[in-house]
């Protein structure tokens, strides 16, 4: 009997038990799709973290006040700008930020971050201005009410029209839009990186935040290689300038650089990926148990069938080939459909994350599912094919 004939028998065998074949395939499909997709989601979120850190810039340091005291004062910011003590610091941008509602001709938009800073902030925070222009040092000195808005804000308030030159109201104060930021990849699933507005520090303090301490100070190093040097210089200056409050042992500020941020965030993302991987593994296992169940239930019937075939003169090899081919086709088809489902599913954003397929997860999921299919398809067949026909026929 030719191989082609045996394969035809296998196809007929699959077709003769549509429900069983369908369920087996479904089990494999779901297992494979779940593994690939969940790993892709984990990978996607890790990638997003990396992107976000990248977007922050790799040569910046962020000084943040902790403990709510008046730590980051203008005097401190001024002190960081010291060519002698801090030669590797190229710019210092004090930052105040708050949430605010922007209004233009009756349209409201609540912006997540209304930032007040210096023009150097644009470079340091890696937020280039797309249309229009950034405000200038002169604007800061004069406290001019001008603002550069993010893409989301522009789309919300000025859909279809040019934003530059328009005047919008923030808490009763009138600001003129002078520029729109380039669109940033929306790094975080929870925060829109394009939903912000940046205005001169003085103007924001005047109208929104008052003249308290800064929220943070963004310090730019000369290059990413100089970040570590700049960090030690900054921390030296700060330790001289800022008193450790009575009753506390730690300093009331924190200096973070991009690589530290990257580390903590990557750890979080890794935990997430591991968790998703575990869930995916479980679903593959459950799928496998489902397949096993279906296969075992049909062993009796298939064993009888093998008995009949042997009685009619089928050699063991032909029977094994047929059943192996059936199992292979089912698991490959189910696995292939699972990969297809995962590929289609990965085109959608899932819980705010764009999944990024990991090729090795496809290989792994396919291998595992095909192995399960082959094992449970061929082991009972192999055992039955060894029986004497009459014993296979009597099997219960």
């Amino acid at each position: 009997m030719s191989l082609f004939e045996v394969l035809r028998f296998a196809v007929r065998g699959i077709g003769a038990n549509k429900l069983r074949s369908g369920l087996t395939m479904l089990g494999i499909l779901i297992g494979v799709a779940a593994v690939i997709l969940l790993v892709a989601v984990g990978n996607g979120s890790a990638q997003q973290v990396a992107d976000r850190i990248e977007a922050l810039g790799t040569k910046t340091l962020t000084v943040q006040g902790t403990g709510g005291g008046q730590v980051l004062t203008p005097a401190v910011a001024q002190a960081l700008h010291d060519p002698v003590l801090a030669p590797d610091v190229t710019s210092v941008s004090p930052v105040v930020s708050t949430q605010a509602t922007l209004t233009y001709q009756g349209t409201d938009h609540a912006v997540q971050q209304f930032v007040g800073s210096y023009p150097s902030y644009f470079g340091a925070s890696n937020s280039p201005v797309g249309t229009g222009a950034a405000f200038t040092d002169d604007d800061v000195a004069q406290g001019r009410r001008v603002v550069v808005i993010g893409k989301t804000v522009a789309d919300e308030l000025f859909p279809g029209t040019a934003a530059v030159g328009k005047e919008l109201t923030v808490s009763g104060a009138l600001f003129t839009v002078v520029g729109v930021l380039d669109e940033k990849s929306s790094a975080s699933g929870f925060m829109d990186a394009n939903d912000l507005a940046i205005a001169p520090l003085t103007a924001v303090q005047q109208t929104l935040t008052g003249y308290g301490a800064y929220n943070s100070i963004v310090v730019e190093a000369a290059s990413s290689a100089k970040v570590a040097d700049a960090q030690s210089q900054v921390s030296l200056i700060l330790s001289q300038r800022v008193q450790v409050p009575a009753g506390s042992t730690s300093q009331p500020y924190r200096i973070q650089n991009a690589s530290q941020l990257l580390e903590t965030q990557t750890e979080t993302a890794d935990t997430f990926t591991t968790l998703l991987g575990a869930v995916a593994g479980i679903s593959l296992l459950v799928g496998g148990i489902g397949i096993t169940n279906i296969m075992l239930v049909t062993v009796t019937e298939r064993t009888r069938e093998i008995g009949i075939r042997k009685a009619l003169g089928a050699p063991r090899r032909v029977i094994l080939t047929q059943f192996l081919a059936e199992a292979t086709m089912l698991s490959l088809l189910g696995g292939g459909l699972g990969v297809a489902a995962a590929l289609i599913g990965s085109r959608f954003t899932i819980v705010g994350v764009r999944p990024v397929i990991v090729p090795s997860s496809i290989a792994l999921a396919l291998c595992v599912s095909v192995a399960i299919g082959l094992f449970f398809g061929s082991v009972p067949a192999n055992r039955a094919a060894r029986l004497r026909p009459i014993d296979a026929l009597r099997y219960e």
Partner: protein
Amino acid sequence: MTVLDIRAVTKVYGEGAATVHALRGVSLDVEPGEYVAIMGSSGSGKSTLMNILGCLDIPTAGRYLLDGVDVSRLNDRQLALVRNRRIGFVFQSFNLIPRTTAVANVELPLAYAGVKAAERRRRALVALDMVGLADRAGHEPNQLSGGQQQRVAVARALVTEPALVLADEPTGNLDSRSTEDILRIFDDLHAAGRTIVLITHETDVAARASRLIRLFDGQIASDVQQDRILA
């Protein structure tokens, strides 16, 4: 040369208290072209003997030569060949493959014999026509009556035109007209020189054979040549 030659064959099922001696030393020669009927009460070991003759089971003790060859020396491939080419076996319980059409069931032995698909289909349809089921070729076993399933099983046993036909109660579920159809086929086979061994409970079926063997409690009680009574 002797087609079937069994010597002091015994078959024991089970162990300990549950031991059943289905055959207690059966010896038998069947010459080519013989038409043998086996009778005996239920549980006397007829099917057990038939399964051994059909190379589907092996005896606990004793020797079985098929066409002069000791069956116990054959390997899996050679046994498959013997079952496929030499023997046409009709099961007492039909044993059709479920969810597979009558014609596909009948084709099966031809497929294992390596016959091409078109030729296979043609011969399967001829065999089904012979047992009067041409119009049921596309039906699956669960869409056929017991008697129809039995006739499909007969067609499947005859489709390879085997030299030896072993039939375990091939007319057990049939009305007198269908029985007559099947027996006429067997008459034709006999006339063509094939060897037939058939198990039956009906005396008028047994009367068509040229030799009648009665089994009693796993042993041959009588073995007589007889004049065939044709309908």
